[in-house]
């Protein structure tokens, strides 16, 4: 994969200004800044080059992008609005599991950066079964012309029977959790031969299985708290201080009042992503039709329901038939914990003030050819993966095989 860049100047700036549909907010001026990915659209239907995960590091200087083919690209922030290619490496290879006679895909499910920036940043990636820690060694300052070298530092394997869906570092700089459908393991970064199982929701009888874990996240400032979301639309927090096995959650967040009702209720309730706010006071969850903002002090309903996918409700039948109803969209917070973002079909993605109702900006990823088909509803163009720069108003969105960077021009206060 090589990377290309298209500056906003190549087309009129008006074309890329934010589009607001039905909601009022003209203070947000998000502008397309860059695109990266293959230059030519791939000829076959191969999804190998599709982006599967995306993550800024804690300073925002680095952006890591993972692909279905197991490749990881690291970009670095050259100036305020531009990201350049830093390095690229093959993180995982596909493997054949002899015991179950299945192929283990090389698709990168999650990328997380080590929370403390050193001279040589470190990042962790995982596919369905194996977690790997890499170090990016920057060329020495006394040498001219060196290239960053990516070295594998640790391999954490054998910890999961089911497919890993997320990784999250603890802010103690020592431990992290990895989560699969039914369990969460706590690892020490230095020790790859052992992990502690801290949550296990596997029932005695697998026939009675009703709920799976979809994502998990460590609290940004409290080293003892973590949250996990499930397919039942519930989020549970665990406290590592309470006991060695965190099967009994500290809190359980659910929104019965916000349920859709009807045949598709359960399917649309499943939470595809959950994130603590950077300031540690709130939670964001993404279910199929909306984003919900929760105050950690209030478990029985969210403080805000941001409904940006209402237009999908009449189409639920078709989405179910085509399996699109199972798509897992990500979501994220802005660095100052005041805004949230998530993506949808058609290359659309939505940015909203987390606490003010009716304040949603919709943007659409410009396609390669610059055409936007307003009349067609394109379910193949899913803005699944995204992240927000932790310190600046820069966002990155990945859909299919292209990554996009948008920058906000007006430095308006949001609070």
């Amino acid at each position: 994969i090589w990377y290309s860049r298209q500056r906003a100047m190549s087309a009129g700036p008006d074309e890329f200004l934010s589009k607001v549909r039905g909601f009022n907010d003209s203070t947000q001026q998000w502008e397309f800044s860059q695109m990266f990915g293959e230059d030519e659209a791939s000829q076959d239907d191969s999804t190998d080059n599709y982006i599967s995960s995306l993550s800024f590091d804690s300073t925002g200087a680095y952006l890591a992008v993972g692909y279905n083919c197991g490749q990881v690209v690291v970009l670095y922030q050259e100036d305020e609005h531009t990201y350049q290619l830093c390095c690229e490496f093959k993180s995982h290879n596909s493997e054949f599991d002899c015991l179950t006679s299945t192929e283990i895909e090389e698709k990168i499910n999650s990328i997380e950066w080590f929370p403390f920036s050193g001279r040589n940043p470190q990042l962790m990636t995982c596919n369905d079964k194996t977690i790997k820690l890499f170090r990016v060694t920057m060329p020495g300052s006394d040498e001219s012309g060196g290239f960053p070298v990516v070295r594998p530092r640790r391999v954490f394997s054998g910890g999961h029977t089911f497919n890993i869906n997320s990784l999250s570092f603890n802010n103690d700089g020592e431990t992290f959790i990895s989560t699969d459908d039914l369990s969460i393991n706590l690892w020490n970064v230095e020790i790859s031969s052992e992990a502690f199982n801290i949550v296990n929701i596997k029932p005695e009888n697998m026939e009675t299985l009703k709920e799976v874990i979809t994502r998990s996240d460590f609290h940004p400032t409290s080293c003892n708290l973590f949250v996990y979301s499930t397919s039942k639309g519930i989020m549970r927090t665990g406290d590592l201080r309470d006991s060695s096995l965190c099967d009994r959650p500290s809190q359980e967040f659910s929104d019965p009042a916000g349920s859709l009702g009807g045949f598709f209720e359960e399917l649309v309730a499943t939470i595809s992503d959950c994130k603590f706010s950077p300031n540690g006071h709130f939670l964001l969850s993404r279910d199929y039709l909306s984003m919900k903002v929760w105050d950690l002090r209030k478990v029985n309903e969210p403080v805000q329901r941001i409904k940006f996918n209402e237009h999908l409700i009449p189409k639920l039948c078709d989405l179910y038939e085509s399996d699109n109803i199972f798509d897992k969209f990500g979501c994220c917070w802005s660095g100052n914990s005041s805004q949230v973002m998530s993506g949808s079909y058609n290359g659309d993605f939505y940015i909203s003030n987390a606490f003010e109702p009716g304040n949603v900006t919709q943007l659409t990823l410009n396609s390669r050819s610059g055409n936007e088909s307003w009349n067609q509803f394109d379910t193949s163009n899913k803005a699944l993966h995204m992240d927000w720069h932790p310190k600046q108003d820069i966002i990155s969105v990945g859909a299919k095989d292209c990554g996009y960077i948008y920058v906000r021009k007006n430095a308006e206060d949001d609070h």
Partner: protein
Amino acid sequence: KKKPQVGSVLSDIMDNPFYQSLTNEDIQVRTDAVKGLADFAEQIGPQRTLDVLLPTLSDICIDDEDEVLAPLAVELGKFLPLVGGETHIQPVLYLLEGLAKSEETSVCQKAVASLSAIGAQLSEGVFESHFVSLVIRLAESEWFPPKVSACPLFADALKRSSDAKKEQLLPLYVQLCQDETPMVRRAAASNLKNIFPLLHPDVILKYFLDVYHLLAKDPQDSVRFIIVEVAASLASTFRAHNLGEKSLELVKPVVLACAEDRSWRVRYMVASNFVLIANGIGAEATQSLVYVFVNLLKDSEAEVRTAASGKISGVSALLDTQKVISSILPCVAGLVNDDSQQVRSALASDVLLLAPIFGNEGTSQHLLNIFLRLLRDDVPDVRLNIISKLDQVTKVIGLDKLSEHLIPAIIELAEDRQWRIRLSVIRYIPPLAKQLNVDFFTEKLGDLCFGWLEDSVSSIRKASVENLKDLTAVFGEAFAVNNVLPKIVELSKKTNYLHRMTVLLFISQVSPALSEAALNNHILPLALTLASDPVANIRFGAASALETLFPRLSAETKQKVVRPVLQTLNADKDIDVRLYAAQALKAL
């Protein structure tokens, strides 16, 4: 970086194959080469080490893999004599300083150990100008890995520093204890126990009082649980200066706070360090903290109870018996029925050590029931832990009271379905045998020992042979000849060839413990019979077994009795038999 001069006598190094392997493409070659660096440097002498070798190592340090850098750091620690002494040590220190900044902990740790080793050998002037300034540079770095490396080196620096220099170094260390990254705070906190003993209590109070209390309230759980060890170290340092009261004043609030910390891991640290803390604050103060220990024995988290259970005997040794009986024993009675098997297992390993403290009467009265209850636990691990420490009890009250329960317990474990449990039992038989007389042993446990020879798992069969060897050492040759050998002969006639293999194993392992008479009368005939076994593996095994007997046999026996048999085997139809027979004949 000096480049070797072209055409000089140094150029022969460049052609040296070892030197070239240092920069070989294959990482395995480089790693192996690096491990022989000190030897190579010794061979080429200090001049060439400085001029040629070190510059090459400098290149390696800049961008080689961690697998190469870690052994490199180890070797550099040996370089002080190899560069011709401390006047030339600067480039070596420079390389180690670079390695101590690595993000890879294994590289850092080796670099730090090497720096420490070299530092200890430097004279005062060089130590101050080179070593101490290096430590200061690491501590003032902007990145966290060098700061983490600096922490253990501070103890070395402070050990040899004047009071004035200490005044310069200590504020730096205090800063590390308050660093914004938890990794540095953890390293700084955990090295305090090496630093406190080097300082006068007044100095500790002047610099560390605030930081000590800050660390005890650190938001990171992983920092707070280091503070327990720090408290113990503080206590023992102050007591060493006869400031017991001040020590208690500093340590008690922190220990109490940690014992009630919301994080079970912090409470766990209090439990597992309780004896250390008790030794630090003294017996009298410990009496007043017994209730803290008891609470830990009753903690809601099983891991904490497990840690505390393992320290019961250690803590009880510091208290008077009455206190133990009134405060601790009631808990122990409860722990015997704890839900968690880890807790009961830890209890079983430790509780027997109370016997010497209680003495004969006390043990019979208060402890015997506890031991017996644990001996009947559902979980094999618990029972095994009791059996392994039994000698503590038998020293005090003798074996009679226990044997009636002990023997059935052993037999049950010896026949457990899990082979690893059977294996553990076998290991305890010889120590147990030492406490029994031979007749009692043979009557109760003899069948067991011989039964293991025919176990389905080969590790058990091997262990059982070793067991018989140890028993022979305990009971003497008569036991071997009268009890063991008949069984072995019986075994050699079994139809399953694996049993006959076990006999061969016995021959090679146990024979060294037997007399020459026994060897000639019993062992040799056995080996010779097996040499004509229908199974080839047995035949060549017999050949090797015979070879092991050679040092003990007379020349006549070897030539007249053994040689013909070996010669027959040398003409055997099986190729492996011929190989081993030829080998044995050669040894003859």
